[in-house]
């Protein structure tokens, strides 16, 4: 008895796929069915009506926070990766290179705990400003709200995006950038007009991945910000832990799927347009 190479390949992949099917595909279909099932059974949008009635503000809050975080992460990553690629002062480039990756593998929950202390009314940030004479002690405010969530997300995600971007920038043709410099263009202009357009796909991938990651994080909104308004992940946990209300929680879950699908589609569309445009 002998089996073909194809059968052997399928046999080797099967156990891993079984785990993905059991722990991802099955619960995913479970969540879709639960979200679209009415209290008396049958297909209904009741759960979405309730979810929208209670949490439409939080949907908006989540979208704004995640988009703002992606925007600032992208900007910070462009500045870091741009400096690493085009910087001329070796001392500055070296220091930046040694510093920027530190948060890369730090878990979100640790980042959240750091920021909870750093951004508090009497945290190290405000205390440093007061000590430097930039601020009076009475002027200090706590940043532990939407600003704190954005700060934590940007702090945690920037190294990841900057790492991918710096890798992509290192791979593009140096001669073109040098030519731009020789023709008198400033480094900023070389970065924005010559280098960035070539690495847009990598930047977008990194940002879409960050977008989905931020939509999945539970610890940061729970630990950094107060209870209201909050992000959809916290609302889902609350519906389950306090009411055992799976229908509404799953409706909110479907909304987060749609948000991340939106991000993925924007990315894929751009990718296709770029391919069609290429000669």
């Amino acid at each position, binding site marked *: 008895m002998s089996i073909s190479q194809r059968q052997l390949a399928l046999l080797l992949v099967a156990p891993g*796929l079984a785990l993905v099917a059991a722990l991802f595909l099955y619960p995913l279909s479970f969540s879709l069915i639960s979200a679209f099932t009415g209290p008396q059974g049958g297909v209904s949008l009741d759960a979405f009506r309730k979810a929208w009635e209670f949490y439409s503000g939080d949907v908006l809050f989540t979208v704004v926070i995640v988009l703002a975080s992606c925007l600032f992460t992208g900007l910070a990553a462009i500045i870091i990766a741009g400096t690493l690629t085009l910087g001329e002062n070796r001392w*500055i480039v070296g220091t930046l290179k040694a*510093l920027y990756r530190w948060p890369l593998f730090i878990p979100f929950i640790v980042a959240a705990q750091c920021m909870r202390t750093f951004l508090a009314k009497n945290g190290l940030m405000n205390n440093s400003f007061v000590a430097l004479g930039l601020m009076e002690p009475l002027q200090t405010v706590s940043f532990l709200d939407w600003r704190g969530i954005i700060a934590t997300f940007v702090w945690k995600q920037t190294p990841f995006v900057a790492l991918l971007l710096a890798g992509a920038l290192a791979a593009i043709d140096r001669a073109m950038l040098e030519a731009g410099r020789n023709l008198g263009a400033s480094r900023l202009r070389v970065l924005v007009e010559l280098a960035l357009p070539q690495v847009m796909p990598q930047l977008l991938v990194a940002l879409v991945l960050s977008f989905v990651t931020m939509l999945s994080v539970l610890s940061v909104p729970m630990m950094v910000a107060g209870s209201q308004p909050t992000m959809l992940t916290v609302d889902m946990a609350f519906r389950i832990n306090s009411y055992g209300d*799976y229908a509404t929680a799953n409706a909110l879950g479907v909304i987060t799927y749609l948000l991340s699908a939106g991000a993925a589609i924007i990315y894929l569309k751009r990718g296709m347009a770029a391919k069609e445009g290429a000669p």
Partner: protein
Amino acid sequence: MMRLASSLRTALAAFLLAAFAFVLIGPLANLALWSVAERWYTPYKLPVTYGTRYWEQVFRPTGDAMASLGTSVWIAVLTVVVALTLSIPAGYALARLKLPARAMFMVLFLLPQAFPSVAIYINVARVFYQLGINGTVFAVVLVHAAHGLVYSVWIAAAAFGAVDKELELAARNIGASPLRTFFSVTLPLAAPGIIASGIFVFLESLDEFTGTFFVGVPQVMTLPLLLYNAAMGGNYQVASITALILLVPSVLFMLFIERFLRADVLAKVGA
């Protein structure tokens, strides 16, 4: 004039770099300060009394933290075993064998990472509850393994893909069986990449919070859950020390990943 402009620019760049360092290091410094602050309250800008009382409390052999550290490491080891057992054959098949719809299989392993996970985990917890395995180490290991599988499968596939086929052919030519060739040539050559993926899965499991929050509580208390409870309970010292324990392996991994993952393997990940 040119010199003045140039030194002004350097000064500005140095200032920006210092601001960046403050934003980057500040939160970590605050964490470190809290871990050795025995008393710290407003309006004091720095801790009033320093000491290692909370470190002793955390590292007491009978303390919660040591038990949680043990649970976390045990779960992470089991997760690595499960993930590698599944991903070594899958990675080999994806890299070397003629697999129909290969791209689709690669994407399937990615899916658990590409969806917002909270909505998935609440339903996993519901299914596990019906099966009666909620709150067990077994359940947490399954969730962590499914989450880490994309890294281990993709990196294993890249590692096998980077092994020189000529060496396998040479082994076959001198009479080694396919199985013997795999175990004495292919697997040892792919080992560095596979070990790197194992470390990655280990760290992901050690740091995982959301899945454990829904599937493991209240019986399985990992370090991230202990950190969460301490932080929400207002015990900043224990929360900060727990956070520092989680921080050390993450930073070490960041510093040494390039040694484990060679560039030729890294370039093939996801391809």
